[in-house]
């Protein structure tokens, strides 16, 4: 049985913050406002993480900063019969499509261009909309965040493709492939944007949706 005092906020559909409480983002345990550390899992508690957006932006800029050389530097360096050919992400995609390798071309295009660019835009849009209270249709902002969090890590596919290709295509003088510096920049860019999305305090997104519903 739940007594009146605890069942009241549930009946009214309140968040922990609105009820003057703090919820742990790691395990869900509820505490009185002002508690510093979760009694269940030991994680630090914030009613809303004020530093969250600054971390989101810091990782976002770091990710964008390395995404530029990731596109300009070669991902792969191919040596065929003594001749060296560098290929960037876009260059590789064009080559695959030209050879009729549509599947590989489209996967690389999705993983290395569409997902990262989409993620930069989506995270910036979400962060700005939380910061300035921009109006977005109900739930759309949250769906967008889930997409970012779930899809973002799949960009790493291209780094694995590069690693396997380079490890296998080592046929002496005939043909050999080595990874280029673009692969390092790309891996860093994926890691930084993942950290950016992980820093997001999702509860702030829902606070905004709540405010819009009431007006």
């Amino acid at each position: 049985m739940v007594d009146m005092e605890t069942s009241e906020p549930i009946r009214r559909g309140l968040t922990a913050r609105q009820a003057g409480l703090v919820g742990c983002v790691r395990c869900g345990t509820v505490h009185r406002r002002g508690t510093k550390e979760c009694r269940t899992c030991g994680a630090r508690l914030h009613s809303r993480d004020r530093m969250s957006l600054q971390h989101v932006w810091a990782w976002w800029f770091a990710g964008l900063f390395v995404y530029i050389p990731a596109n300009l530097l070669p991902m792969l360096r191919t040596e065929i019969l003594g001749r060296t050919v560098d290929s960037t992400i876009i260059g590789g995609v064009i080559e695959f499509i030209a050879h009729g390798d549509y599947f590989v071309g489209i996967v690389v295009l999705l993983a290395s261009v569409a997902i990262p660019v989409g993620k930069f835009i989506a995270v910036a849009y979400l962060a700005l909309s939380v910061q300035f209270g921009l109006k977005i249709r109900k739930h759309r902002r949250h769906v967008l965040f889930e997409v970012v969090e779930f899809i973002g890590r799949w960009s790493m596919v291209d780094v694995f493709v590069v690693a396997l290709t380079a490890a296998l295509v080592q046929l002496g003088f005939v043909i050999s492939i080595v990874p280029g510096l673009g692969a390092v920049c790309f891996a860093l860019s994926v890691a930084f944007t993942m950290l950016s999305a992980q820093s997001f305090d999702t509860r702030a997104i829902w606070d905004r949706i709540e405010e819009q519903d009431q007006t």
Partner: protein
Amino acid sequence: MTDTDLDRLIACPTCDLLHEVAPVEPGYKARCRRCHTVLIAPRRQSMDVAIALAVTTTVLMIGAVSFPFLSMSQSGLQKSTSILGMVAIFDHGLMIVAGAFVAMMVIALPLVRALALIYTLLPLRLGRKPAPGAKRVFLFAQWLLPWAMTEIFIVGTMVALVKLMGLASVSFGPAFWLYCILVVVVAFKDASVCKWSTWKLLNQSAAA
């Protein structure tokens, strides 16, 4: 309200909405009313299954790094690689950073997550007090979840295969099949752990 009163509540980690904790039957999931995040999802014999799958993951990973992964042949020349050989491709200067990422995401972190789960759950299963630092270890393993990329690696392998098939004939080594099984085992292992129930158990046995 005392802590005991507050223990009747759960705040959704994603959207902060308060819910009343109700007993959930094994096999069912309690989701947040507003954002549908899974809050409580107990499983029957959850601990036995989770420990067994974590041990399986460890064994499979040891096998997957020990055997050849893929091999390629063209005009009499042959090259085979293991997963470690793939990491070793990034062997100089800044490239080592990319090698470290691949090694972590493909080998180390999935293994660390499995070992962390064994470290957290095994003492509880044996009815002992939690191992030292068990809470921190379990928390860290949760944080690592998106960084362990077994399934993404297998998809990357498929793409590399399609890419190379036009160039030469490619064949699979034992490590490839072991890693495919590993991806499935990891997915079942992750689904078998209910965070909420595990935290409750960790606290109960620490207090006992």
